[in-house]
């Protein structure tokens, strides 16, 4: 399965948020790194079909995703950044609601919801109202709902935001596992998350990929552009700071 981004552009009046991005994504974990306003969320929304593409196209298996409509959304799992949960729903109700929107039958949805809530460590809280949850618990619930339909494309916008260090480690492992059989695209501010789990990293700035590749590729790139003489001390943070040190992260 290939998700192809072909000169994808998003323009808001005079501002170009995403500028002619092209790449091909296959099974694996893709990390998007960039400062605020780099275009990460816009790009993710375009991949999810909820932001209109100004020019270019996104294709899955050769078919334009807009034309695939429900068939594409059926393959998609999405965790938006800072999205509102329904405070008076219980975790289980929320999962079942999303499951019904994803077209899962009720008995399967129940079974899958229990399984996923267990996986994200919310099994004991499934009957509790979401308004009683901490930020981290809500985030875990968000990830659980994204997995309900066993998506082939999983888009996670800041999935580790609000998680404590222990939860983050658990999460990284889970995402790495998920990336073995699907396309996982995640954006984050936390450089170490991407460094740990992403098979391929995109550095975004002003709507463009300014660097991309495996961690090893990016190391080579850094040594070239920064002229660092201590390659053994390289980490992704260095590259990140090299590009974004003057911007708000």
């Amino acid at each position, binding site marked *: 399965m290939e998700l192809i981004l072909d000169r994808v552009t998003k323009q808001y009046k005079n501002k170009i948020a995403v500028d002619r991005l092209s790449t091909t994504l296959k099974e694996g974990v893709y990390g998007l790194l960039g400062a605020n306003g780099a275009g990460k969320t816009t790009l993710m*929304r375009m991949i*999810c*079909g*909820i*932001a*209109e593409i100004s020019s270019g196209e996104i294709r899955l298996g050769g078919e334009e995703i807009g034309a695939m*409509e*429900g068939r594409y*959304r*059926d393959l*998609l799992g*999405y*965790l*938006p*950044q*800072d*999205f*509102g*949960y*329904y*405070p*008076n*729903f219980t975790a289980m*109700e929320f999962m*079942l*609601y*999303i499951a*019904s*929107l*994803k*077209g899962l039958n009720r008995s399967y949805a129940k079974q899958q919801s229990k399984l996923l809530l267990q996986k994200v460590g919310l099994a004991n809280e499934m009957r509790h109202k979401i308004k009683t949850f901490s930020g981290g618990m809500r985030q875990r619930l968000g990830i659980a*709902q994204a997995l309900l*339909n066993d998506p082939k494309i999983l888009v996670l916008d800041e999935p580790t935001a609000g998680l404590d260090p222990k939860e983050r480690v658990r999460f990284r492992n889970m995402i790495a596992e998920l990336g073995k059989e699907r396309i996982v695209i995640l954006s984050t501010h936390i450089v170490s998350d991407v460094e740990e789990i992403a098979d391929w990293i995109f550095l975004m700035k002003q709507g463009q990929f300014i660097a991309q590749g495996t961690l090893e590729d990016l190391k080579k790139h850094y040594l070239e552009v920064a002229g660092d003489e201590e390659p053994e001390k390289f980490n992704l943070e260095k590259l990140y700071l090299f590009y974004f040190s003057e911007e708000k992260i």
Partner: protein
Amino acid sequence: MIRYEWKKIFERRLNVIAMLLGYILIGICAFNYVTQERFYDEKTDSYIEGIEAIRMGQARAKAQTDVITEEYMTELISEIQSHDMDLESDEAYMEVIRQLGDIFYFAAKSYTDMRENIINKNALRELDLTDGARFYEHRIEKITDYLNCDFSYGNYTESEKAYWVEKAEHTNIPFRWGDQSVMNYIWELVFVGVYLLFVVIICTSSVFSAEYESGAAFLLLTTKYGKDRMIWSKIAVSVLFVVGYLMGGALLAVGSIALVLGLPGADLPVQLWNSVIPYNLTVGQACLCNLAIILLIGIALALVLLCSSAGLRSSLATLVIGAAIIIAPAFFPMSKKSGLWNHINYLFPVRACNLEEMMGSFVSYKMGNVIISYVVMVVIVYTVISAGALLLIRRAFVKAK
């Protein structure tokens, strides 16, 4: 899916408070209408209040007549004229009017010129009874005179005049007479239903916008059925809510009164409110008709607000728009020059919900050779608005920004 959309409406505290306040208002009005009724008892020279007053009013109406015949009206007006006093005076009220009750006002209104806004009681005093009261003949003459008047905003066309006169002539006569007080309360309560439209506004304004305000829309729209089935579920739940809530209000209003007093007078003709009304309806049917119109307007309003909620993505802006749709037209004056404006003005919810006033106003809409009565026009307009809004909601909600 419906279950969860339903839950979302009821999980908002503001919605629940508004719903309860709406029903409390109905309950208070029902209680007030009944307890404030007064009846003057000649025997004891005192006023009786509440349910007993209603029962005595019913007995008086029964004793007066069963049917408004020419003979009865002649006799009644002759009796009124025999007092030879200014019927607008306090003395006339004490000696004549309060003893006769509703039938006096019915007779006086029937002989008052249609262009006058208040009942001319002295019209009965000045009436020439040489050929009797000519009640039904006079009714048609009164309507014809009105239709032939010169109006600064435009006159009735010949075809419109013929349409209304024919309708008036086909009204079932003679009118049956009876006490209408209970049905009048119910009518008033049905009209109070207009206030429940504010609850409809509050509860529907956030249906779509709340999803954007919370950010959940971005998730919902990426699900398989987020762009179709979910939207239809929201619409279906909103319409069901409007119908259920307004019907609940109607049941509360009618039920609370009917439990105590029954529904006497439901089968009386609507002409007892205003003899010129050219529709063959009973008071009960008119109440149902008005309720149906309020329901239709409620549904149309909800759909327009859903559209606004989906497009503007702001509950507050939608709430303001909804309130403006209901409140602002109440302050729109009738034009002295533009008949077109007046015809549009009649169609705003606040007027369209008050069928009693509109039924006796001879408002019709001429489209080429076709004349559409006011009630039918209200139904057409709000059905078209509903259909238009329905088509736009999905587009507004899924439109990517």
